[in-house]
Each structure stands twice: as C-alpha cells, then as structure tokens.
C-alpha cells in the first residue's frame, strides 16, 4: 500500500525522461523567444476572471444597492453595458493606444483590431492575448466606476458615448503614460495596479461629470436613501475578493511579488474599513453598514498603487489613512462644496487614489518593490508621485470636460425632469423592479 503513494512521482519522472528522449530542447530555455510559464499564465487567467467579476456583478451590485428603487435597473444597465462596450473598443483600438509602442504620450494603432496577437505571441512569460484581456478588464472597470457620479440623471445614449470616447481618449493615453512606456513610467512614478490610471482617473472624471451634468433636481429636498444595502454589501465583498486579481494580478506572475501584493491588499482594506467605521461611530454615533463597506473600498483604492511596493506595516498605515480621508471627502467635503457626486466616485476613488499614490512615495520599501520611499531616505519619490498625480488630474479633467461638452451637443447629457422624477428604469429601459 505504501508504494502506491509514490506512484505519481515515479510516473512523472518517467514521463519527463521520455519527453527528454523525444525532444531534449524542452528542458533548455530558448534565449531568443520568451518561454510560456504555466504558473504565471494560470494565475493571470484567474486574475482576469477575478477582475471582471469586480465589475460584473461586483460594481453593478455595489452601485445598484445604493440608488433608489426607481433607478436600480438603469444603474445595473449602465455598468453592464459599459463592460460590453469597452470590450469591443479595447479590441478595436484601446489596447493599441495604450500598449502599442508609439511615443511618450500615446501608443499607436499597430495593434488595432488586435492584429499581431497570434496564438503564440508572448508578453513576457504569458501569452500576449492574456495580457491584453487582463488589461481589458481594467479598461472596463475604470469607466464603469464613473457612472456612479451622475447616477439617476444621465441619458443612456450620452453615457455610452461619453464612456466610450473617454476610454479611448483619456484612459488609454494615461495607461500608456504609466504602463505603456510613456513619460510617467519613465519618470519613475510608482503605480503598481492603477492608483492613477484607474482610480484618480475615474474619480476626477466623475467629479467633472457630476458638475457638468448638474445636481439631481430634488437633491437636498427629497430623501434619497439606498434602496437595498444588502446588494451593496454583496457588491463590495465581490470587489474585495476580485481585487486580489487586480493587485496581485498586476505582478503579471505567480511569484513573491504577487503574494505580498495580496497580503498588503488584505491588510490595507481591513484597516481602512475599521478606520471609516470608527470615525463614523465617533462622528455620527453609529457604525453603519454603508460606512464599513465604503471604508473597505477606500482601502482597496489606496493600496492599489502601493501594492507592489510596500510592506504590511506600510499597508496598515495606508489603510488607516485612506479610511479616514475618504470618510472626510465623502461626508464633509462633498456637503461643504455642494456638488452632487451621487455615489462618491471622487470621494472614494479620487481622494483614495490621491492618498494612496502619495503614500506609495512615503512607504515604498526597496526590499519589496525595488524603489525606496521617503521613510527609507528618498523623499524625492513623493514629489515624483505628486507629479504623476497632477498630470493625471489635469489631463483627465480637461479631457473629460471636452468630451462631455461634445456629447451634450450631440445628444444632450441629461434626462428631462419628468423622467428623472418618475425614474430611469421605466422611462429609459421599459422595466421596473417590483
């Protein structure tokens, strides 16, 4: 009986020896062409699925639960349709504009329609098609995040035009700047999984959009409590688990960097959730469910740029800071300045991304990600981070504004007051939740 335990081992050795006899080159790494690493590929296949889950249904549920019942289907429709639209646009041109060689500011169209992505084309140790589709899930979730800012009042056609144009004209170039060989990456900006590319980007676009589109007509006058926070809890949980694909997957390898990224992601998220919860408890007297899940998302956002560069203690501080900072932004700043960022896209993703990107410069550990931060005697990194943050904010704000204005001329941005009052579900989509 004991010998049977070793049978698989002997079989493997035997098969290996057989394989060597048939094709000796299988054991020798080819210097010229990159070799597919099955561990890396398996993990990246998984990460891609996890990140897609973050959008459908993670984000869809997170957002849908927070709006009033009359708009719940419209919100789900917006997120789901953005997923579909960005998939096609990324294939047509987005991937090429982001990761094509190009120059310092944008890629090119050499990979439009994914030309050149053959079965065997590689990107490092994984197939290029896999790298492309992994990045596609990022291009999907970033515009999907924006829709929360103008919830309850945007025309569906305008939303499709805006997000489609935005992904190609704002998201793809900024991706190129940071990850595609562009000037921010060259300048040493540290952004492991998308603090600038995804979160500051979506947050600023959301802020600009909610101001340009304008407040909901009964904002401040009419109560707008969330219709079903249980959906939001489910959505936030899917975001949390899926985010392991987002951060640990950005290692593009099944290795120690990915493992540490997963570790710091978990720590920062939990710390931020507790931070928001305790701040709210002290400020308002009760710890709320919406608060704790919002805090968790804030932590996820803030650790995103830092996830490959900081150690667990850095993650703890980033979490505590972002939970409190995003609470302040969503609750105090928003009400003080009076803009109607319905689902706090700027408050959580914009501010969380800014805090995270800056703190990456503070807590970056050379032993983890190869670059020291302020605490290790390299204060210049914080300035580099600020440079990247500012470049993103300015380009995104201007680009988003222009696209919104153009879309307004083409189809009009906002629904009529009647439609807004009766709810988008019935008027725009002909459906209601009973």
């Amino acid at each position, binding site marked *: 009986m004991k010998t049977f335990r070793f049978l698989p081992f002997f079989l493997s050795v035997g098969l290996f020896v057989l394989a060597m006899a048939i094709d000796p080159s299988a054991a020798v790494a080819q210097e010229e062409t990159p070799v597919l690493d099955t561990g890396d590929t398996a993990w990246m296949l998984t990460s891609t699925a996890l990140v897609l889950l973050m959008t459908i249904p993670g984000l869809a549920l997170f957002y849908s639960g927070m709006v009033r019942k009359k708009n719940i289907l419209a919100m789900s429709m917006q997120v789901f349709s953005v997923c579909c639209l960005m998939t096609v646009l990324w294939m047509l041109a987005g991937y090429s504009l982001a990761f094509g060689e190009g120059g310092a500011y944008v890629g090119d169209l050499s990979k439009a329609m994914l030309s050149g992505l053959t079965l065997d084309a590689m990107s490092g140790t994984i197939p290029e098609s896999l790298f492309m589709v992994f990045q596609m899930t990022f291009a999907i979730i970033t515009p999907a995040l924006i829709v929360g800012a103008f919830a309850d009042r945007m025309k569906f056609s305008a939303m499709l035009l805006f997000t489609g144009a935005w992904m190609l004209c704002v998201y793809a170039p900024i991706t190129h700047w940071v990850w595609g060989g562009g000037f921010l990456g060259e300048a040493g900006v540290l952004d492991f999984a998308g603090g600038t590319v995804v979160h500051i980007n979506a947050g600023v676009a959301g802020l600009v959009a909610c101001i340009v589109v304008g407040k909901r007509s009964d904002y401040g006058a009419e109560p707008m409590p969330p219709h079903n926070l249980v959906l939001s809890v489910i959505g936030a949980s899917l975001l949390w688990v899926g985010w392991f694909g987002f951060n640990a997957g950005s290692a593009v390898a099944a290795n120690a960097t990915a493992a540490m990224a997963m570790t710091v992601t978990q720590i920062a998220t939990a710390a931020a959730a507790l931070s928001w919860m305790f701040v709210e408890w002290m400020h308002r007297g009760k710890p*709320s469910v*919406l608060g704790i899940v919002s805090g968790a998302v804030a932590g996820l956002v803030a650790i995103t740029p830092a996830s490959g560069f900081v150690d667990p203690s850095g993650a703890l501080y980033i979490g505590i800071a972002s939970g409190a900072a995003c609470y302040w932004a969503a609750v105090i700043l928003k009400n003080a300045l009076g803009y109607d960022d319905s689902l706090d896209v700027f408050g959580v993703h914009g501010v969380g991304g800014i805090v995270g990107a800056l703190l990456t410069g503070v807590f970056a550990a050379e032993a983890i990600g190869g670059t020291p931060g302020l605490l290790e005697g390299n204060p210049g990194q914080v300035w580099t981070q600020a440079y990247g943050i500012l470049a993103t904010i300015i380009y995104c704000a201007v680009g988003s504004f222009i696209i919104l204005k153009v879309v307004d001329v083409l189809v009009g941005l906002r629904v009529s007051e009647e439609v807004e009052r009766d709810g988008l579900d019935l008027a725009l989509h002909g459906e209601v939740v009973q």
Partner: protein
Amino acid sequence: MKLVMAIIKPFKLDVVREALTSLNIQGLTVSEVKGFGRQKGQTEIYRGAEYSVSFLPKVKIEVVVNDDQVDSIVESIKKTAETGKIGDGKIFVLDVASAVRIRTGETNSDAL
C-alpha cells in the same frame, strides 16, 4: 353592519388575530401601511446624509361585523393591541351599506 378599522403596531397582529377568531369572526383583511400620530419618526444616516423618516410602519386590520358584535370586537382589539406606549394606534368604526358573498350571492348579514 359596521366596518371596524384598526391601525395597530405590526408585532401585535398575531395576538389581535387570535383574539378575534376566538370571538367567532369569520374573516378579516390586513394591509401593511405607513403612518404617524404622536409617535415621532426615526433618523436614518447614509454617508453623512440625514433623512428624517416621518412615517412608521403599521398594520391596518379591517373586519365587517354585525351591529351587535361591534362593541366586543372593539374592546378585544383595544385590549390585545395595547402596549401603553405612544404609537399603539387607533380604532375606527364605519357604517357599511351592503355586503355580498361573491361565490354564493348571499347578501348583508348572510355574507359576513
């Protein structure tokens, strides 16, 4: 015939129903309603936005009875639905002009 309409606290529904069936009531209608009287509402808070909820959930019981049963029904509801705290509710008695049992066509007292 009279319609006895009682607005009560939701958790009292089972107790009131048992009391009414022990008085030989053959049927009643229940609806979930919202309302306020002297009982003030609650405050809900979502990410710093405060909403005062003026309406509280209540249950409305409607039962049509013969004139001679009204007093015992009202008394029974009052005793079982009472908690002594604000928000216990109210009972109204309305006149009913006629009644019909749909299945058989019986009218008025025979329909009850």
